[in-house]
């Protein structure tokens, strides 16, 4: 063990703190309603500080329970943080902080706020666990923690719509978990180990054997269902709009990335290894996601449902970048993942503010809200321009990189498709702006007021990030935030030796 560094002992705190917080909130809810607000926000502030203090550290490995490897074979459960995990940890905890701060005012309308915070913290614990886990079965367990918390959060309003959406989501989610578990069992029976790095070492040159191809497909179906890639997307447009707005922001901004894309990419790139057939298949899926998501969004007149369809489309961009497998493509994909989490959660928070102010999310019933809700209007304009890829906002830079990467690797058709989808996204969001925020004020909306301070503050913070995050591509910031994640994917199987030699 490397005794000179103690930072690795901070890793389990990222899971333990939210779990403990969830427990504390349930214990202390009888004392005062305010206490749950304070505990939840305080814990996530601590998490964000922890994550940023771990930034720029080398690959960290924490062995749970102190089980040392026997003859070089790991026997305990590992928590690993490398560049890719770090990027995901930043996304998860930052967006969680903003959403929680937003919830302080927003969730006053719902009963049982402490329960909401408990489930929220459980979801954070699950996602932090998934991105740090160095053990396949452990990853599955954390994935289920995050997923079960999210099922109940989708149904939190307990109206007919929410229950129906949650049931649909849960049936699909449980089926997905069954596929993932089947894949894990097959991997275990082939390799006799569950540690990600150890699996990779055993499978070094067996990528083309039949059971491994089968597990690749099982993981694709399982994580594809969890991450709402196009043929498996049916639950997302129901589940994301039905949840309370901060939860929609978490689900769309973070959850589908952490337990869908991250898990699949980690297993395929760093453990099993990608065959050209698999990457071409993924390119097809991402292209379909991109184009079909934006087409389906066109027909929507429900604010949040429209945003949900755009999530599918934007995740198509992220996967397109990553599965091009070139350095530029991976850079673009990961950067777009970071950007998407910011602007999509901002858009969902905007929709929450609109629902809070007016009580409706039907585009046709809204109009002229810029006069009454200037903060919501301005921030949603920034977010809309970001998602549509208008310079100087962050979405433009990542889309530009992805399109350049497509051209560089001679996928001209995909590059054209990406430009087309970007234009259609712009049209779709001009529709939102036109119907919700511009135009004449409807008679029924005369008494609408701007939302309370905490909600405004969260939205302004995210809008500020949207305008400035293009600067992350400048030298200095790029080496700190994005390059370690890109290298973690590019070097692929180097992950194995990095983890096993710790």
């Amino acid at each position, binding site marked *: 063990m490397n005794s000179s560094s103690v930072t690795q002992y901070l890793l389990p705190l990222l899971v333990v703190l939210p779990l403990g917080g969830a427990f504390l909130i349930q214990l202390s809810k009888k004392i005062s309603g305010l206490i749950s607000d304070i505990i939840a926000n305080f814990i996530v502030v601590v998490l964000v500080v922890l994550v940023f203090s771990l930034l720029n550290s080398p690959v960290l490995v924490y062995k749970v329970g102190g089980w040392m490897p026997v003859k070089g074979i790991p026997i305990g459960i590992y928590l690993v943080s490398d560049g890719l995990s770090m990027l995901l940890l930043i996304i998860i905890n930052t967006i969680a902080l903003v959403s929680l701060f937003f919830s302080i005012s927003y969730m006053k309308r719902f009963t049982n706020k402490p329960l909401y915070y408990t489930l929220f913290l459980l979801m954070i614990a699950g996602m932090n666990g998934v991105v740090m886990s160095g053990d396949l079965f452990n990853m599955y367990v954390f994935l289920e923690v995050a997923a079960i918390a999210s099922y109940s959060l989708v149904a939190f309003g307990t109206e007919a719509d929410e229950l129906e959406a949650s049931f649909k989501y*849960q049936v699909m989610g449980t089926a997905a978990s*069954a596929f993932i578990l089947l894949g894990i069992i097959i991997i275990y029976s082939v390799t006799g180990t569950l540690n990600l790095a150890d699996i990779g070492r055993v499978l070094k040159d067996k990528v083309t054997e039949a059971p491994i191809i089968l597990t690749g497909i099982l993981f694709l179906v399982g994580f594809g269902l969890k991450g709402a890639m196009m043929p498996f997307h049916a639950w997302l447009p129901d589940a994301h709009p039905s949840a309370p707005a901060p939860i929609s922001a978490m689900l769309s901004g973070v959850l589908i990335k952490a337990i869908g894309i991250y898990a699949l990419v980690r297993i395929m790139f760093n453990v099993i290894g990608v065959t050209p057939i698999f990457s071409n298949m993924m390119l097809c899926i991402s292209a379909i996601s991109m184009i079909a998501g934006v087409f389906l969004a066109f027909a929507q007149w429900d604010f949040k449902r429209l945003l949900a369809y755009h999530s599918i489309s934007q995740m198509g961009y992220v996967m397109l970048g990553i599965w091009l497998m070139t350095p530029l493509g991976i850079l673009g994909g990961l950067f777009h993942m970071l950007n998407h989490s910011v602007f999509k959660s901002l858009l969902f928070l905007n929709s929450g503010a609109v629902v809070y102010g007016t009580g409706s999310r039907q585009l046709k019933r809204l109009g002229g809200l810029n006069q009454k809700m200037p903060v919501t209007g301005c921030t949603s304009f920034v977010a809309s321009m970001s998602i549509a890829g208008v310079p100087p906002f962050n979405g433009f830079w990542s889309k530009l990189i992805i399109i350049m990467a497509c051209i560089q690797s001679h996928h001209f058709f995909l590059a054209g498709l990406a430009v087309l989808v970007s234009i259609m996204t712009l049209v779709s969001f001009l529709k939102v702006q036109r119907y919700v925020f511009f135009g004449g004020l409807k008679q029924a909306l005369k008494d609408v007021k701007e939302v309370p301070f905490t909600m405004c503050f969260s939205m302004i913070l995210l809008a500020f990030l949207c305008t400035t995050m293009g600067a992350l591509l400048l030298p200095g910031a790029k080496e700190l935030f994005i390059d370690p994640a890109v290298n973690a994917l590019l070097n692929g199987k180097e992950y194995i030796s990095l983890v096993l030699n710790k």
Partner: protein
Amino acid sequence: MIYFLCSLLFLVGLSGILLKRNLIKIVISLTIMEYSLFMFLALVGYKQNALAPIVKSVTEEVNYVDPLPQALVLTAIVIGLATTALLVALAVRIYEKYGTFDIRKIRRLKG
């Protein structure tokens, strides 16, 4: 042979999810699918004529069954219990709202 029965059980569960119209029957199908996986997981660790994995002495080489899948099965069963409980609770709440378990009549969300 027993592996074949396992995969048959998995397919029974999967087809139940896809074909059944009743919420409770869908939940039961999901459970069947999960149970087939638990059985498969336990089978992976099974060896013929082997002992239960309780270590008595370190020096002696004894033929043990693999203990890891048994631990995994326990964890997976607990997770399965949580999802099933939540699903059934949701089904009851849906029945209160819609007055039916038939998914053809529970179609408020579409588009």
